């Protein structure tokens, strides 16, 4: 038995990049990072995933941008941000100064724009990994979202992979509202993705019955929060089952350590926290602590041993330290 004082090895890998622990912020849920650093030291996170950076500054969508829904919320912020130049000049250096590992999310309207972003990022110091937000309308395809089309997704990923420095992993962020998420995931991996992140927010809508108009100015918005967790777990499960060797960043309504563990058991080796940050600025650290305690209670010495564990065949007992010792005899 493990003594309670022993700590679990929480290190994890995003492709070859080692993270001290598996908990990161989710893209677009921590603004520039400076806001949360008033509450805690960002270096204590596995990584900070930035908001999706675009070439030019973006004002985003009009308000109302947010509507609360049962156990979740709809948002249509529209990637408000300063653009890549200001990001590289001010926001990224501040993250690096604070000792945070920065995973930079990028968003574009065309393959060329993603490639241009990758080119700007490839000489920037402090980019631990690049996450490609594929849930953007493709201006060259009548505004069809890249993530809905395996070929378009693969094209974006391969152009970013080809442009980005070889030692910076490229993560493809997938949308859940597609016909076959495994097909998109496979296309991205074939296109050169070093890891996958899922899920982005599925599209939702709510109507205010008092004003009898859509609740959001944009009409539709991304649904997040615990309401989408089962959807996230299903996507993780299917993709991990199809490609068990590909590292996956799991996210979608993680509010507690138990939720994070669920993602890990489904196949995630990194867990991102999004909507919970709007509810609790300390959510990431709390979830990390709870996750570590849960792993400890279950006899794990290493986080890595729990990744994808729910996929073991029925009847095979939980794989923990004792079993490993027996199997080595």
């Amino acid at each position, binding site marked *: 038995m493990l003594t309670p004082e022993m700590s679990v090895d929480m290190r994890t890998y995003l492709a070859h990049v080692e993270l001290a622990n598996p908990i990161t912020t989710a893209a677009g849920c921590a603004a520039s990072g400076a806001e949360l650093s008033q509450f805690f030291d960002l270096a204590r996170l596995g990584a900070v995933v930035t908001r999706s950076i675009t*070439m*030019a500054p973006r004002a985003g969508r009009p308000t109302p941008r*947010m509507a609360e829904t049962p156990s979740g*919320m709809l948002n249509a912020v529209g990637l408000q941000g300063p653009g890549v130049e200001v990001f590289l000049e001010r926001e990224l250096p501040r993250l690096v100064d604070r000792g945070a590992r920065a995973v930079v999310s990028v968003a574009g309207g065309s393959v060329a724009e993603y490639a241009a972003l990758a080119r700007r990022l490839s000489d920037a110091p402090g980019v631990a990994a690049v996450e490609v937000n594929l849930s953007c309308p493709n201006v060259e395809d009548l505004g069809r979202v890249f993530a809905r089309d395996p070929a378009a997704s693969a094209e974006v990923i391969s152009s970013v992979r080809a442009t980005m420095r070889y030692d910076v992993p490229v993560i493809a962020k997938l949308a859940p509202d597609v016909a076959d998420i495994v097909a998109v995931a496979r296309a991205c991996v074939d296109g050169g993705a070093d890891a996958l992140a899922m899920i982005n927010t599925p599209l939702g809508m709510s109507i205010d019955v008092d004003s009898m108009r859509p609740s959001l100015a944009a009409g539709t918005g991304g649904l997040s929060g615990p309401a989408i967790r089962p959807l996230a777990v299903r996507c993780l499960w299917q993709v991990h089952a199809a490609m068990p060797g590909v590292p996956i960043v799991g996210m979608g309504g993680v509010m507690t350590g138990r939720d994070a563990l669920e993602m890990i058991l489904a196949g995630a080796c990194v867990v991102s926290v999004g909507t919970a940050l709007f509810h609790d*600025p300390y959510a990431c650290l709390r979830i990390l602590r709870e996750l570590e305690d849960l792993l400890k209670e279950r006899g794990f010495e290493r986080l890595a041993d729990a990744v994808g564990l729910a996929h073991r065949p029925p009847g095979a007992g939980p794989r923990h330290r004792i079993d490993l010792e027996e199997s080595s005899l």
Partner: protein
Amino acid sequence: MQVTGTVLTTRRVDAYHALTVVAPGIAERFRPGHFVSVAVGGPHTSMPSRRAFSVHDVKPDYGGTVELVFAVRGRGTAWLAERKARETLDLVGPLGRPFPVPRDPCTCVLVGGEYGSASLFALADTLQQRGCRVDFVLGAASADRVFGALRARRMGETTTLTTEDGSLGLRGRVTDALPSVIADARADVVYACGPMPMLRGVTAVAVEFDIPVQVSVEESMACGYGVCMTCVLPVIGDDGVTRMARSCVDGPVFRGERVRFEDIGTIPFDALGAPGGRAQEGGAHTRNVS
């Protein structure tokens, strides 16, 4: 900072609810204009967004208390209105940019609409301590929705009340009474807190008199500390450029004439990064990337 506060007292004030919470860390850092955000629905809530409230009163009792005043508008505020003494609340605060206060004594008109007047009393206190004259103009749709009339009468050099139905004070809106109050008091500055249309009207009056106006806006927000990006409104910066500013961290107090009230709920075409605007023209393809 985040504090688990204990509810000390709850009371009804006409159409509103007031909740006094023991929250030492927040009380001692509080300055007039700050707000707090409260998690609603208990530990396993189905409501992930926090609710933001302005602070009515801060007292040193029990290490420091804050009093929040709010109207029940939905499930979250209904839950909050049911809280009883000794229950705990998850508070984050003090948040936002407080009211700037003048260095030298001057005459200030404080304008409050609905429960927005709640945040003006701490300000009035600070202003009076600095030797400022304070005049109040408070208004709402009806008498039971005018918050703090008695306290305003006690504190203010003059207090003017307005209701749209005429049930208290003058019939009309605060903006109808404001010009004569500014003129009579020879006011140097206006502070206002209340619904957006009122702030727009108050700003127009202050601009007419060519005196500075500080408005505290009320936008719906999910977090209160700058990460959700939902509480934005178009504000003109020092450089003359309009940006979609967050009311939680860039505000909630803005110089009134900098807020583009007529464009709230839109992205003005000349805002930084507006769709189709110069900044986004061509995006990556045409931009010179050196």
